[in-house]
């Protein structure tokens, strides 16, 4: 893994929301092809970190080098064409667009219609349920189906780095299994991923490496197996 190219490098990142410092100077590094988990309690700053990586929140300090370029000062809508996609917390589907229109929104910045149609078929292959419901308004789908729409939409942007914010939130265990199968499959196709999860055990079992975040700071950074074996991590986050 070590000889692989660094895709994302975050140094000394600090983010403040109206006087409250949500992220207090963190370092992250993600190499091409890795699946990295970011775990931690509610309010630890995980979602804020992800939002900062895609420009939805501007950092107070620190640098974010993505694909060799400083990306802290570019407008939000330019990130996706650089290969950064996010599946936001709560899925963020467009409820009154159809399933297919939602998916097309993922390819909004692209103009290669033939390729988009191919990717669309690929997404329908991953999520046959979406194909059955392609004309249905996305707001009428179940939570799991909405998560599929959000992930399919992200795939349609052809990401190099995919950020997933709480993909298991509010879903039945069987759907969570299905979603994580897809996550592994996307990873095996070479997409680099940063996965934020409350379900720390599942996240670490899926990931290569992990970071543990606590009150705006990174407290542990290690391989996923080492974190799973770490007694303190087990005690605090894995319910053991």
């Amino acid at each position, binding site marked *: 893994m070590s000889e692989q190219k660094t895709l994302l490098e975050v140094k000394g990142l600090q983010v403040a929301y109206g006087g409250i410092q949500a992220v207090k100077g963190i370092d992250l590094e993600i190499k091409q092809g890795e699946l990295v988990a970011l775990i931690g309690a509610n309010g630890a700053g995980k979602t804020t970190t992800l939002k900062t990586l895609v420009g939805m929140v501007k950092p107070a300090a620190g640098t974010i080098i993505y694909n060799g370029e400083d990306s802290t000062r570019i407008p939000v809508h330019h990130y996706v064409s650089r290969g950064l996609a996010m599946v936001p917390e709560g899925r963020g589907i467009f409820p009154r667009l159809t399933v297919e229109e939602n998916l097309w929104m993922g390819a*909004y910045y692209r103009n290669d219609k033939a390729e988009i149609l191919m990717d669309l078929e690929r997404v329908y292959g991953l999520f046959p349920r979406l194909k059955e419901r392609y004309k249905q308004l996305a707001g009428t789908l179940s939570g799991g189906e909405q998560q599929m729409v959000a992930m399919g939409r992200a795939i349609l942007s052809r990401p190099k780095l995919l950020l997933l914010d709480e993909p298991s939130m509010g879903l039945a265990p069987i759907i969570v299994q299905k979603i994580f199968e897809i996550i592994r499959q996307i990873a095996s196709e070479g997409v680099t991923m940063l996965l934020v999860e409350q379900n720390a055990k599942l996240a670490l079992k899926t990931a290569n490496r992990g970071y543990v975040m606590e009150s705006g700071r990174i407290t542990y950074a290690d391989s996923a197996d080492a974190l799973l074996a770490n007694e303190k991590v087990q005690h605090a986050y894995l319910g053991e």
Partner: protein
Amino acid sequence: MDIFIQQLINGLVVGSIYALIALGYTMVYGILQLINFAHGEIVMMGAMITISAVSILSGSGVNLPGPLLVVAGLLVSIPITMLLGFTIERVAYRPLRKAPRLAPLITAIGISIVLQQVAVLIWKNNPRSFPDLLPHASHDFMGAVITDLQILIVVLALVVMGGLLIMVEKTKLGRAMRAVSMNQSVASLMGVNINYVISMTFVIGSALGAVAGVMVGANYGLAYPTMGFMIGLKAFTAAVLGGIGNLAGAVAGGLLLGIIESVGAGYLGPITGGVLGSHYQDIFAFMVLILVLVFRPSGLLGERVAERA
């Protein structure tokens, strides 16, 4: 003459104009949750600029058939109102995008007054007669009278509205507009430039407003700098009636309001034994507004698909 059919026809004509204007309100509301009270003044500007352009053209010896002269006038007024709509959003609303919602609302009223007063400065506060350039031969229709002009207004309004609905439903820009109206931050994640979409919403709404302004002028035979207030308020009522934020609702609300108002006015005299004449027709529009706000605040088509967590 059949009063009911006649008032139905008149109502359909006025209603299709309301619908065009209501679309401008509802598009902006759908995306910004802002009532753009300056939209009525855009309508007025469309009418006044067209009249001026036509009179300058015909004064300078351009010899075109009447309808083409009006089209030429529109070719002048539409770009100017589009630019106005663009500028208003840029200057007056964009800086307040993150302010409490009352701030841009008050600004909208301010802009509306500014535009009205600018119009008074340019054209003086007198009605201008709309040049008699469009065909208005009358035809007998089921015991009532319908003119070429009325047919033209309704058909043109339907064509423009149909074009808008197709744009919103079928094009990439339209899809982006709908996405932005549902979730701005996620739309920007998808690569949508929110400011561009918002600007386009104002630009398109203003173009529709200009067309509607010319229809108002042609239908009543006159236009004046303060006309935007009442017509704007009526169209806003139509948008609320249909369910503000909903495009089909704006069309339905506009047509319905025009018909309610005209049919109501037609019978107001007989009902009240001549105490109230048809010039009280405005009370119908605002009674409708009050009833909708009391009994169905979301409007006729305003029901939204619930967003599940």
